[in-house]
């Protein structure tokens, strides 16, 4: 039953990914959120490759899964980069510091896991990839929390597309961190229910992306400015009317 449900999730995810990608081309969103759609394309290709390997060489599936899972987690940084780029588009100083921080953290994590793998007594691709994925997802969760905190603190206006990307990816990352953390425990990892947490969260993310990335919705970056501008125009218009009234009154009084 669980296997059938897992297969159903897999096929639904592939269909949803393909649908979002086709829609992005139709709605001309692909270029606007290039890194995000590259991530989605890579995930779709990985899913199709995994399916091929499972059908043709079932024995090679387990190591192939872990290697591609590492790719999946690594390319997830493209989504984080995309979020940082769009969220801090109008704050060049913050964006510059955030980018340096992002690459620094990624480098540090890869170095740490590589060092552990080399210095450890037994090197297993499954365990190392799982650890790497857990660490990468945890760092992504931290970075997402940081960017959301920045958006909330600086009241940065975000469009529907950006909100969708952030909430969808946050839901997936949240579920991944929790499931990978529990999955590393001896009793939990083998339970079939835990293996479904990540696919279900990913499907939820795909549904969020499908609905929020239907059409282009820019970040209303100049909302404050335009509001000030609008208020200024309104006040200027009222003042102009008041002055013109006063002038006409004075003119009439002068004539009288």
């Amino acid at each position, binding site marked *: 039953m669980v296997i059938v449900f897992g297969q159903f999730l897999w096929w639904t995810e592939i269909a949803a990914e393909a649908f979002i990608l086709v829609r992005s081309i139709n709605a001309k969103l692909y270029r606007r959120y290039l890194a995000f759609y590259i991530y989605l394309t890579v995930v779709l290709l990985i899913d199709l490759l995994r399916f091929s390997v499972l059908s043709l060489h079932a024995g090679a599936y387990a190591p192939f899964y872990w290697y591609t899972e590492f790719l999946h987690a690594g390319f997830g940084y493209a989504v984080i980069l995309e979020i940082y780029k769009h969220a801090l588009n109008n704050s060049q100083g913050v964006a510059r510091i955030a980018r340096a921080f992002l690459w620094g953290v990624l480098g540090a994590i890869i170095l740490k896991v590589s060092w552990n793998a080399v210095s450890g007594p037994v090197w297993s691709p499954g365990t190392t990839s799982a650890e790497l994925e857990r660490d990468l997802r*945890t760092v992504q969760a931290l970075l997402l929390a940081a960017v959301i905190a920045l958006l*909330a603190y600086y009241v940065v206006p975000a469009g529907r597309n950006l909100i969708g990307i952030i909430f969808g990816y946050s839901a997936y990352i949240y579920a991944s961190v929790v499931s990978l953390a529990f999955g590393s425990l001896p009793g939990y990892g083998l339970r079939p229910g835990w293996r479904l947490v990540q696919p279900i969260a990913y499907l939820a993310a795909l549904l969020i992306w499908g609905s929020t990335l239907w059409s282009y919705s820019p970040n209303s970056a100049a909302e404050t400015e335009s509001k000030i501008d609008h208020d200024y125009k309104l006040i200027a218009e009222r003042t102009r009317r008041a002055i013109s009234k006063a002038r006409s009154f004075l003119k009439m009084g002068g004539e009288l």
Partner: protein
Amino acid sequence: MSQLLPYLGVALLLLVVSVLWARQLFLARKNRIELIVPRKHQATGGSVASHGDLGERIFDLEDWYFISGNEPSEIQKLFLRERSILAISWLRRTRRRVSLVMRAHVVAVQQIEDLQLAQELKLALSYLVFLILCDFLIGWIWLRGPVRTRKIVGQTLRTVAWLRGAFEQLMARVDPANCNALRTNFNHRGVRS
């Protein structure tokens, strides 16, 4: 099980900030937040500086010495009760105004390219300390009265002055022309009060 705590902590952090941001987005849609601070500044009249002077006057012991030396105990009680109400009201107003200044600041710094994170963190921490201090003071005045709270008020006034200074510095980098106008405004009000 303890090795899970850092991961679960990070997941919880992500969940909390996401919920807070979602709440902010929902409230912003429901009730558009007004960010045009200069207009509010003018509309409310008076600045943080003049508020500082008012605070000093409210917590000044001169009136209390006069009342406690010459008037009966009922008048003294009445004085303390009314002064407490005044002090709490002043603190709430000061808190609201500093929040407006902070809101103006976070909107203004979005335009800065060479944003200094250390300065930003210092400002955010000072603001947090100020909010905690204000709430603590309100509780303290409510419990003990304004006369015994005078020393702590001095600290609050210094924090307000620091926040104002930091805000002026940042505004000078964002918009020097408006900053000069703002400073002149502060000074004029200070002289008048």
